[in-house]
């Protein structure tokens, strides 16, 4: 009687809460200097606390940003309707510590809550391990690996082999000073092959400081104006965009998830992903602008809020921050009707070194136009779609590994989304 196990949720919550109460240590402990849980909250609803949004009473610096995630389990709905067991992260930012467990247990999202930062931020990221409700046999720790963080230190790298990871009922806080912009990604690195196949993956990117230059700044002939956005610090406006979308490639092997749910040996070598997704959904769910309805098995908690519907007015430039965190294969993504200009790879501008290192002479430009990009796990690219001259209509962005345009056995789905161009 599998369904009975869901009633364990409050039980586990009580157990963890009591553990937190009775032990002197080992409790939920959100660290955000100057944050007052009685007065402060995520007022603008972006999932983060930001000093410049007046969401932290007494920040150490104006560039302070805080976030609080939980690591646990839950369910998501595949595009063919199958409810699938996952491990994942949920966002509890701003909640008082004594509400974190009951909110964060059995609330895993896929993809994980997006982490959107700005170059120069001082970022405090707390991770509370709320345990896996459907797997009481597991005592797994969790971590956050900020993938591609420049000059990382092991203590905040999230690699359990070289540092520490957090046990159930407790909180570990990571700190990152964002000195460089770019499209990164994040995931749990504990038992990586298992926890990542199970869904502990999310979007993470850092917007460039060039976005916040004073009005009328001359960038080698390109005049910056307030509100302008760029992919990276290009020095010449060549990565200007009107809007940006994170797109994370992911895919699930239903046999693996079913084996995990029913506590069976896990197939690694035989892993074969059959649900190919963008931002945690297969087509046509990718183009649903709203959060997907909560899975029945999830006790009514919404777990797939991220849409991948791309919308632009003809003439706009659209930045796609594409990352791949699937654990089984490479995927090729194509936009055959709207050419893509690749301007960044792995959080760096595609440009050779500045010849004399002093500017304003720029290095060799390595941007290229293409209709497809190929990414393996752990790779990211910054792609600009220029919609100038594109007729209004619906265009597709999809994998040319065409057998992955499926939701398991259901055809016409999978790793695909739509680009809507309007006048």
């Amino acid at each position, binding site marked *: 009687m599998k369904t009975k196990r869901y009633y364990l949720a409050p039980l586990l919550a009580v157990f963890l809460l009591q553990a937190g109460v009775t*032990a002197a*240590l*080992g409790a939920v*402990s959100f*660290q955000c200097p100057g944050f007052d849980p009685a007065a402060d909250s995520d007022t603008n609803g972006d999932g983060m606390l930001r000093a410049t949004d007046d969401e932290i009473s007494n920040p150490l610096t104006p560039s302070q940003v805080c976030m609080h995630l939980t690591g646990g389990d839950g369910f998501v709905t595949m595009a063919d309707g199958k409810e699938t067991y996952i491990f994942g992260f949920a966002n509890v930012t701003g909640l008082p510590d004594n509400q974190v467990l009951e909110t964060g247990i059995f609330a895993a999202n896929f993809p994980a809550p997006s982490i959107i930062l700005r170059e120069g931020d*001082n970022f*405090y990221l707390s991770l509370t391990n709320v345990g896996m409700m459907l797997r009481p046999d*597991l005592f*797994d720790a969790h971590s956050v690996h900020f*993938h*591609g963080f*420049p*000059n*990382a*230190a*092991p*203590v905040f790298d999230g*690699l*359990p*082999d*070289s*540092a*520490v*990871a*957090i*046990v159930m009922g407790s*909180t*570990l*806080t990571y*700190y990152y*000073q964002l000195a*460089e912009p770019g499209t990164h990604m994040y995931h749990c690195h504990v*038992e*990586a*092959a*298992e926890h*990542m*196949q199970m869904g502990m993956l999310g979007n993470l990117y850092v917007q460039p400081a060039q976005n916040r230059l004073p009005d009328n700044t001359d960038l080698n002939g390109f005049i910056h104006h307030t509100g302008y956005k760029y992919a990276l610090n290009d020095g010449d406006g060549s990565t200007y965009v009107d809007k940006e979308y994170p797109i994370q490639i992911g895919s699930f092997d239903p046999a693996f998830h079913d084996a995990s749910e029913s506590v069976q*040996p*896990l*197939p*690694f*070598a*035989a892993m074969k992903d059959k649900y190919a997704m963008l931002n945690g959904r297969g087509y046509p769910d990718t183009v649903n602008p709203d959060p997907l309805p909560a899975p029945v098995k999830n006790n009514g908690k919404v777990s797939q809020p991220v849409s991948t519907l791309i919308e632009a007015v003809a003439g706009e430039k659209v930045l796609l921050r594409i990352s791949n965190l699937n*654990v*089984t294969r*490479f995927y090729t993504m194509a936009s055959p009707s709207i050419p893509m200009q690749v301007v960044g*790879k*792995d*959080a*760096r501008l595609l440009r*050779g*070194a500045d*010849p004399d290192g002093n500017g304003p002479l720029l*290095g*060799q430009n390595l941007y290229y136009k293409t209709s497809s990009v190929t990414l*393996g*796990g*752990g*790779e990211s690219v910054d792609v600009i779609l220029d919609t100038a001259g594109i007729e209004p209509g619906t265009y597709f962005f999809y994998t040319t590994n065409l057998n992955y345009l499926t939701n398991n056995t259901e055809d016409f789905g999978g790793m695909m989304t739509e680009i809507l161009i309007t006048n």
Partner: protein
Amino acid sequence: MNRMNGKQGILIPVVFMLLMLFGGQAQAVVNGVTGTNFNFAVREGHISSPDGGSILMWGYANGNGLMQYPGPTLIVNQGDVITINLTNELPAGNPVSILFPGHSVTASGGSQGLLTRESTSATDTVTYTFTASQPGTYTYHSGTRPELQIEMGLAGVIIVRPAGYSPANKTAYGTGDTAFDHEYLFVLSDIDPNVHDMVEFGMANQIDNSKRVSALWLINGRMAPDTMGPAYAPWLPHQPYNCLPRTNPGKKLLLHVVAAGREIHPFHVHGNNATIIAKDGRLLSTDGVTPDLAASEFTIQNEPEETVDAIFTWTGKDLGWDIYGAGVGYEHDCVDNSGDGFDDVTHEYCADHNKQFPVLLPEKQDLVFGGFWSGSPYMGNSAQLPPGEGGLNMNGGYFFMWHSHTERELTNFNIFPGGMMTMMVVEPPNVIIP
């Protein structure tokens, strides 16, 4: 977590302890053979997987040596004329050969095969000759039934040193932008054990390549945690090459990344981006001198048969806290006379000097600890850990995992962790890396 994981949890420390015993061999060099004339024989042997498995391989052997996987790494000098004599000690009916992609080769002796001249027996010598005209990283591999023989292990690497190369003037391609302090080889490959079993059982003619499925993933012919063992370990006689990169802050690490299997691998370097300076033995350059077309990546896409040269440097810049600790008990100087922002000796980033560690770490009972965790977030420091925890980080170094980001490849026969993975360590500045 799979219950069987416990076994390998023990194995990693054991292997590492053994490494420490044989520490003198953990050198920052690419192991291989040097010279201009080589006698290779193709022989059979069994390689080991860390779970005790044993896989039949065919490999190139140097002289009278054992067959090895990958084949002997040839380290030669630009301009040298290289001669390789090949004989064949495989069971009759399996002719063998060598192709040298990127080189113009003359072959003599033996008999003509589909792609090149082949050796059919121990007394049938084929001689291959080529001039190592351009520096860089190259592969060599079988040109006879390559769909079977490369899978069986007939593949290796050639590193051509640029003219003017010396231990005091180490460069990858002869110019200052390609200079390095330490270098390491990463031969990435994959194995379908079923193919090897069928060869061993005399059923090679029944192998169906369309059904090939990898189950083992390797770096330099070893599966983690054996990748971190010593080079030339006596208990791995057919897998002489290890992969344990070490460096110090600010030093330049040259990576020779070579895909020698069937699959494309995304090789992720924790710690920092690496700059891709060359592919397939050619500098990424408009003028042939400066790698001005080089891009910086945190995951290196390594396609089958491709070689990539990359330079990696870790400095700890801009972390926002002092990696050597701040305040009482952590007193140290940061002296920057050169004006590059870093201490002239330790390469500490002076702008972060004496800045406090930004967060409170949980108490020990709230954490699980990695074997490579020193107990302290500070470089060169350590702190007491619960019994049985840590212990693999003698110098308080910063360890980073370098691995395939196709994470299912971090397994050996379905057991995590293992496979295409190793640890790179940034040792404190006072630790001298040979």
